[in-house]
């Protein structure tokens, strides 16, 4: 599966409090969460994100709380995949479980610029910056994790009989 979109870039240690501030955790409605996504670090995000866009992060992306509301907000805002130098472990696990595609690739996360057109081949792990023409190779997920993500998360995968 290929994901393609424009890059929206953030820095290191993007925490779950800026992804979705706790003051909005009185709801778990994905649309409402998405309407406040990244609000405390970039007020323009919700206005400029387009369906399929690719989020770029630095080290330790998603650090902080265990709130699944964070990957839910990112996914619902239209982001097709997050590329980061590294991910915080609970965020990493939550993303797979709710079906948000993520990939670790330090060099790509470093070099891809805001606004670049980027494509990611989920099967091979090849990331291509179509604007700069450069390619990067990341470790692809094993097929069963990819199937969970494609199914839309752990629960959907269970319902479809992909995992038991």
């Amino acid at each position, binding site marked *: 599966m290929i994901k393609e979109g424009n890059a929206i870039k953030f820095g290191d240690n993007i925490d779950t409090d800026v992804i979705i501030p706790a003051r909005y955790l*009185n709801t778990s409605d994905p649309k409402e969460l998405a309407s406040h996504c990244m609000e405390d670090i970039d007020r323009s995000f919700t206005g400029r994100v387009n369906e399929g866009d690719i989020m770029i992060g630095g080290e330790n992306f998603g650090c902080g709380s*265990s709130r*699944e509301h964070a990957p839910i907000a990112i996914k619902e805002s239209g982001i097709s995949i997050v590329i980061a130098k*590294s991910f915080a472990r609970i965020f990493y696990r939550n993303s797979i479980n709710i079906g948000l595609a993520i990939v670790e690739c330090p060099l790509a996360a470093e070099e891809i610029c805001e606004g670049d057109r980027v494509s990611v081949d989920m099967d091979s792990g090849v990331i291509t910056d179509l604007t700069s023409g450069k390619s990067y190779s990341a470790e692809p997920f094993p097929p069963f994790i990819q199937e969970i993500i494609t199914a839309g998360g752990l629960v959907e995968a269970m319902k479809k009989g992909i995992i038991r």
Partner: protein
Amino acid sequence: MGMTMSQKILAYHAGLDSVEAGQLVLCRLDRVLGNDITSPVAIREFKKMGAEKVFDRDKVTLVMDHFAPNKDIKAAIQCQTCRNFSAEQELSGFFDVGTMGIEHALLPEQGLAVSGDLIIGADSHTCTYGALGAFSTGVGSTDMAFGMASGKAWFKVPSAIKFELTGSLPKYVSGKDVILSIIGKIGVDGALYRSMEFCGEGVRSLSIEDRLTICNMAIEAGAKNGIFPVDEVTLAFEEGRAKHEPMIFEADADASYDEVYTVDLSSLRPTVAFPHLPENTRSIDDVGEIKIDQVVIGSCTNGLYKDLEEAAKILKGRKIAKGVRAIVIPATPSIYLKCVEQGLVKTFIESGCIVSTPTCGPCLGGYMGVLAAGERCVSTTNRNFVGRMGDTKSEVYLASPAVAAASAVMGRIAGPEEVML
């Protein structure tokens, strides 16, 4: 090759003789925990899975602590969802206003987290119970839902960093200063995906409260879990409260560690983490002149009786500085009651503090002490991210109860020695 303490607990719960770092294992769980923020999502997923009954009504624990007593209508609905689910599932461990305390203070106090247990909780600070020699870690709501339905969770077996503790803590230095100084050294991703295992002769000198605070903030270094060996301090704490017999696991002598650090407890100073990351630490001697508007003493990190006693010692007979608002939050009803009985509440109120019922409220900018732009707070909580306690232009300084109390008196960040001349 030998196993770390964390690996031994995982192996036991996976029914295996041994495991190694990187291995994927499916483990039996002793407890699944959720709160009023994460449980509603887990309940939704539980129903979507088609699950009908939780795996064990005594092993699923829901604690209404984040936005309870309900801060608004939406929060009330979330608690109601949890309340209805708990009634329908006949959960023995549903803690609502009246019995609820901050989850990671409540579970050890009630004997619901025990040495040797394997616990997951849909709250990142679930790693707290490592203080008792349990393997506990934070997960998201979907993992919680799967855990509630099956009593199981999969884990990637972590490697570990060893922290060899020597000496003992000087006066006015506590577990909070230990963990802040470690995070200052290794960074907020210094232990990413790994266990932080504490050991050495210095462990003996640390109270159970110090250990709980240290393990509580393992997540702030990115760790999967933090863990202490079980000793006479642990067993004395668990005596008469543990809901089942503690199990003692020990790291093998030949266990392998990615890194080993030695921490001389006697060399530590009161430590403060500056905005906007817990790794931005400074010794109290290097903080400079920083005026403050608010102080919060409480949370899952520092809301135990001993924490409040430390603060009260400094506040007794003194007034907090004009212009400072100080909020004290005993973490559980029984801690609150003891504060009343022992005269701590009187000390706090006479000094100008307010004393709140248990809640996580201010720690995550929920309610009960939200900050405006430009305001600064010294807080005994665990995170000082941008906007954590309110406006994105507010600032949070993380510190121990002793430093927070001294700062309240001085109206600026100050060490206890300055007040206790």
